[in-house]
């Protein structure tokens, strides 16, 4: 297997110099559209690798990637680990649900322990916003944010952008501007915006790539202050949100976590905010349906849409590995 892999050439396009400027992927604060587009292009090359009979390249041979999950997420963790192994990196998994951490132990103490394992890159998920930023200040390794509290989930936004760019191109609507592929496009994001790192990262990335974002949900879950972000609009009216949209992304609702002080009932939410076929008729003729998963069936999106031909839900999941391969590759190669 290793021998066979060694004969397969590395990805033909090296990461753009611009992407190599970054040591970490924490959020998109310091990223340019050009750098993000180069990541999406690299992900396309990675997808070709994954389509080969031998789905492995030696690009990250000798590198070690550690996944540090302080919050359970099997899907995201497996996606990152697959992305690392497909490039022949060694993988260390550190799963620390709240209970296994000693009370009062600082995340810096935890990092000191894990750093003895000499990883080159840390993939970090944590229930508190900002932990990847804190670890990035303290480690010499690279840090990739795999979701921090309500703050950011940049690889999810990247895979959403990758999926949507490909779907629009396949529908005969390729980007008019290479560096700003979503110019003239509108994404509607529907649900519990306040608690959603997916909504925040998508708002940040989609507007960076030239698009407009409409955030929609019950007023108690729709922070007014987010409308100050450039290119972002807010509405509590689902019909208004989806009108003319190129894609409608429904967010996962965690009713048990929200409680009755924030959301009167799930039935009320479904009645007012579930995305249904009638809504899609108000959207652009080619409009797509997206969901970051895992889907609560017939809560956020009507099943006939989630399973329908305009759904990108499965393709979003499939995009996770090539996009994360591109992120690991771009942050690691040329750094050692």
């Amino acid at each position, binding site marked *: 297997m290793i021998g066979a892999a060694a004969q397969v050439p590395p990805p033909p396009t090296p990461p753009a110099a611009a992407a190599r400027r970054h040591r970490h992927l924490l959020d998109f604060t310091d990223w340019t559209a050009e750098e993000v587009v180069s990541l999406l292009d690299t992900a396309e090359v990675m997808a070709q690798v994954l389509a080969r009979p031998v789905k492995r390249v030696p690009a990250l041979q000798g590198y070690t990637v550690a996944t540090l999950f302080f919050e359970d997420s099997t899907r995201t963790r497996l996606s990152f680990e697959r992305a690392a192994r497909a490039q022949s990196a060694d993988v260390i998994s550190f799963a620390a649900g709240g209970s296994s951490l000693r009370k009062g132990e*600082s995340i810096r103490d935890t990092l000191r322990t894990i750093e003895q394992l000499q990883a080159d890159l840390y993939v970090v998920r944590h*229930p508190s916003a900002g932990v990847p*930023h804190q670890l990035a*200040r303290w480690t010499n390794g690279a840090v990739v944010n795999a979701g921090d*509290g*309500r703050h950011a989930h940049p690889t999810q936004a990247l895979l959403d952008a990758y999926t949507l760019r490909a779907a629009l191109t396949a529908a005969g609507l390729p980007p008019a501007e290479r560096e700003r592929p979503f110019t003239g496009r509108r994404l509607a994001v529907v649900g519990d915006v306040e608690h959603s790192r997916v909504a925040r990262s998508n708002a940040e990335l989609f507007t960076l790539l030239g698009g407009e974002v409409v955030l929609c949900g019950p007023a108690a879950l729709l922070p007014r*202050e987010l409308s*100050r*972000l450039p290119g972002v609009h807010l509405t509590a009216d689902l019909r208004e949100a989806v009108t003319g949209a190129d894609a409608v992304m429904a967010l996962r609702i965690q009713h048990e976590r929200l409680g009755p002080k924030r959301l009167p009932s799930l039935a009320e939410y479904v009645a007012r905010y579930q995305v249904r076929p009638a809504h899609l008729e108000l959207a652009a003729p080619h409009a797509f349906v997206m969901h970051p998963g895992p889907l609560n069936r017939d809560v956020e999106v009507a099943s006939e849409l989630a399973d329908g031909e305009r759904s990108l839900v499965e393709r979003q999941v499939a995009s996770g590995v090539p996009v994360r391969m591109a992120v690991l590759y771009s942050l690691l190669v040329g750094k050692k």
Partner: protein
Amino acid sequence: MRLVLRGGRLLDGAGDRGVHDLYVRDGVIEGLDLGGAVDQEVDAEGRLVTPAFLDLHVHLRDPGQEVKEDLASGLAAAAAGGYGTVVSMANTDPVVDDPGIVADLVARAARVAGARLRPAAAISKGLRGEELTDMAALRAAGAVMVTDDGVPVADSRLFRSACEYAAELGLVVQTHSEEPSLRDGGVMHESAVSQRLGLPGNPDAAEAVMIFRDGEVARLTGARVHLAHVSSRRGLEVATWLKASGAPVTVEVTPQHLTLTDESLAGFDPVYKVAPPLRTADDVAALRAALAGGAVDSIGTDHAPHTLAEKQQDMLSAPFGIANLEVAFPLLYTRLVAAGELPLERLLWLLQDGPARVMGWPAPRLDPGAPADVTVLDLETERAVEGARFRSKAKHTPWEGEPLKGWPVATLVAGRAVHLAG
């Protein structure tokens, strides 16, 4: 014991007294330019000599949390910051809700070289907000104030009763005015910044609502209510209205709320996590504007030390609080007075006469017979903040590396030099 502060410029609430030698004997001020033999001489040439500061709001973590701070380190830190008297908060472990704990604090503090300690006691047993403490016994043991600081008193009935007892006993009630269910799990000011960072927000409405309740209960009961760490424009406006309409409230602001904004949280560093939270630049401007007028009665530090490990937890888990006793004056002198925003005399008033008036204590003066609690300030030398040099056990600070002027070079408490720089 006789000591002289030689050649400093003397300034107190009664005015600028010019350059003199200030003689101190047996704990009290003896007089000016008396001459004669002394046991100790402190050079104050080119320096400002002024009554030591009063801080009505410090957390000394003693008893029970000595890993963060204790009486020795906390009172030494206060002296190094130019403070001669501090009021310690009751949210220790155990809580200061028992006369024995108050008496023990007073007794142990008397043996420490540092600022004088005047302890506050809790309003409610265990700070649980359910049962009143025995305020008469706490006062008899030495408590000068009651407060559940750190924990807002949610139950308005209990707060009313506390004010009624305190008014009768002549105790000042200090409040941590944040409505708990609006504050919810907020770890920073609720704003565009908190929404961008995805951190749970604590809106200024939580402060404004509770200041209104606390002020109206003060009016109802006649209790003297000191509103601690007012942080927002909305909160300040409510407090100002309460005062103007005759409610017996006084207002405290802190160095951090006068100098830092919610943008400081952008790097996700819990060193900036404090309650109430750092607000917006507009709130800072409102607080600063209020210093010059009568809207603010005192500057309290809310010195709140924690260990470095605690402050290196994640933003949700890390405790609230900034340790600042040793930078408070230089910070405010540099940012406000040296910058031309506030007269020196006003800043000193907010650290001397203002807090004394809040407590009903005599205004601190450099007159013969007055307690020899004096600080000597170097208003010229610029030096960068070095947390590592703090006497406090908390050596991490938001102002690390910042060049400041106005360093206290000597502090006398009861005629004894408890802080001497260099």
